[in-house]
């Protein structure tokens, strides 16, 4: 390995040259960091922001708003389409990053003060924890209009200690029962009770391979479609009070109310297309594909409203190829209960451009753009530009619910939520171990809520 002196000279020079390039590049990096500067919190609120309307104007030209959210792919396209009119109107730009590691990015961000202007929030639980870092939207939005246009439970979910810190940019209705009207058409006479649903299954047994389609695989979040099942059953069997105490950690998992829900879910798993192994191995997005097979693989799929943008639903036609009815009531005392979910949005930096964008995003005008593209429902009652009757019906369901609850697993502490997901996967595979699974969840509950 002994090299002639000449070569070693050349190499030393090359190394020095490389160092010089690095030094030059380092000094060049001052400009990107400089461009970040406008996103820092404004020292004082400009007078123009007193009227929070998207037309607030030309003063925003050239400014930018950094936004981070979980949306990628087609959702990212929809979000960018939604902010485009605002960009054209104000001359400001939206700089969007999508990541499914949102929780990590924002947790480190809140702890260190490095935050985007606007951000999607992983759930109401984290929003409450970060309430001190979030800007009070009371002075940013046209609060009276926002409250009039939005379902009250959703407004409440975004409020922490009387401070409005989160708004729902898009929502979804959980617990819809999807079917193919070409197999059996339930549109004129949907089963209103659990017993009627069982009767419908018994009557149409011969037309399908299995009554239910079910798939709980979803990468690291595998199991969540099953948690929706349990939540829907708890809500309708035991009522909203037990439901709310349950996610708050005040009802044990071994409580008969929760155990009954697991057992009812177990009956569904036992009669699902492909059996337990297929349930765990099938991605939730493709779980409904057998609905459209000939002969049909199953009669029903239980899934949220966003399924219309996924799997075979994306290519089938709403109304003629698929339709839904709301989850039937089990205990008549709690009739008309609906479970919803949604993507919360909050504001970390109070800049004029961020205020303007935030105010714009909740308007019916902006919301209409996304709902028209599909796959999302709006929390805004005046956003009605749905692409089909199916989406419009699910949006009305959400707005007119007699009893409204938010997705329980999303409200639970992260550790509890993850354990709930894992428990579903385990229960699907080993239904006989239910007592041990619930006892384990009780242990997690003690730790997760203890902090």
């Amino acid at each position, binding site marked *: *390995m*002994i*090299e002639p002196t000449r*070569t*070693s*000279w050349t*190499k*030393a020079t090359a*190394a020095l040259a*490389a160092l010089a*390039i*690095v030094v030059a*590049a*380092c000094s060049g*990096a*001052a400009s*990107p*960091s400089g*461009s*970040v500067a406008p*996103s*820092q919190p404004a020292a004082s609120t400009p007078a123009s922001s007193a009227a929070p309307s998207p037309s607030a104007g030309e003063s925003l030209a050239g400014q930018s708003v*950094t936004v*981070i959210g*979980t*949306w*990628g*792919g*087609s*959702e*990212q396209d929809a979000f960018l389409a939604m902010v485009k009119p605002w960009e054209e109107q104000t001359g400001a730009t939206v*700089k969007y*990053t*999508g*990541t*499914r*590691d949102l929780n*990590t*990015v*924002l947790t*480190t*961000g809140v*702890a*260190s*003060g*490095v*935050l*985007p202007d606007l*951000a999607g929030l992983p759930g109401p639980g984290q929003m409450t924890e970060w309430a001190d870092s979030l800007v009070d939207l009371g002075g940013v939005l046209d609060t009276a209009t926002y409250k009039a246009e939005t379902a009250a439970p959703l407004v409440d979910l975004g409020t922490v200690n009387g401070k409005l810190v989160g708004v729902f940019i898009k929502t979804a209705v959980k617990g819809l029962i999807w079917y193919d009207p070409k197999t059996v058409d339930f549109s004129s006479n949907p089963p209103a009770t659990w017993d009627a649903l069982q009767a419908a299954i018994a009557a149409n047994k011969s037309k399908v391979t299995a009554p239910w389609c079910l798939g709980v695989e*979803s*990468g690291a979040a595998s199991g969540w479609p099953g948690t929706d099942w349990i939540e829907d059953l708890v809500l309708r069997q035991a009522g909203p009070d037990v439901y709310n105490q349950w996610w708050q950690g005040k009802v044990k998992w071994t409580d008969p109310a929760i155990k009954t829900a697991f057992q009812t879910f177990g009956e569904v798993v036992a009669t699902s297309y492909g059996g337990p192994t297929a349930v765990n191995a099938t*991605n939730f*997005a*493709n779980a409904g*594909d057998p609905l459209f097979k000939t002969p049909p693989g199953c009669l029903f799929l239980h899934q949220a409203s*966003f399924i219309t*943008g*996924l799997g075979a639903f*994306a290519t089938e036609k709403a109304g003629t190829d698929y339709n839904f009815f709301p989850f039937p009531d089990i205990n008549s005392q709690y009739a008309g209960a609906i479970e919803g979910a949604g*993507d919360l949005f909050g504001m970390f930096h109070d800049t004029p451009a961020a205020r303007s964008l935030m105010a714009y995003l909740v308007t019916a005008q902006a919301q209409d753009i996304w709902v028209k593209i599909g796959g999302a429902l709006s929390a805004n009652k005046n956003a009605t530009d749905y692409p089909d009757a199916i989406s419009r019906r699910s949006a009305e369901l959400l707005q007119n619910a007699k009893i409204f609850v938010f997705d329980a697993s999303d409200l639970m502490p992260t550790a509890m939520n993850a354990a709930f997901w894992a428990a579903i996967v385990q229960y699907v595979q080993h239904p006989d171990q239910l007592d041990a699974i619930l006892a384990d969840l009780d242990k997690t509950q003690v730790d997760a809520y203890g902090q």
Partner: protein
Amino acid sequence: MTTATATAGARPGGARPAPRLLRRLPLHLVIVLLMVVWLIPTIGLLVNSFRPPEALTQSGWWTAIFSPSQFTLDNYAHVLAQSDISAGFVNSLFISIPATVIPIMVAAFAAYAFAWMSFPGRDLLFIAVVGLLVVPLQSTFIPILQLFGPKGVNIAGSFLAVWLAHTGYGLPFAIFLLRNFMGELPREVFESAAIDGASPVTAFFRLALPMTVPAIAALAIFQFLFVWNDLLVALIYLGAQNPDNKPLTIVVSNLVSSLGGGWQYLAAAAFVTMAVPLAVFLGLQRYFVRGIVGGSVKG
């Protein structure tokens, strides 16, 4: 090299090469088998990157080999049509190259000092550096981001922040590898240089550095691949602040929606992303084996 010795050995005996080949046959079979097993996931990914989503959900990739008619370039077309893919590519290069060069430069200086210069506390310092190898980088995010953030030096969101972060994360291993390699260089070389009046700086640039090139090249491959494939560090130090600087990994992960839609594009995106590391690896591979055993044997 091996072919040359084989033919050279064939001449005198005549009967000898056959048993030798026979003796080596199981070894070659095992190597070929291991390579096939090792490559299967990549081959599967490659085949799937050319298949339409309906086919992906219905059958395994191996079934596609027998019906190549269904192959499509749509996935690649979609990935390459993303508006931010070319910017992401440039950003990835702009992050990876300095984030490879800086730690190696610093590590080479440090390794030389640890190997050939005596100063008080040298061993203790070296132990501290090696100890840093076991610190999980995730645990450093909050304190470092505080330092980079508006309360600190305010560089979060700039390329400089990612370069410095990767330099810090890469240094312990780089110093460890280079020190062991440099420590093995013959003492006489440095002694005679010192007698001839060479300063430590001259000895470093004209002796130590050129003789360490294989180890440096191996290290460069490791560090480049680590930085190129990194998603989390870029997301933490750039993502929230300045999406303009986002590397290819963030762009690619954004092809998938929050509910998992669009996953069929990932296989194609993986091969687009893989192109550069593959070129780097093939370009530097002759140094690779020499470098990786560097520092392993004390002599």
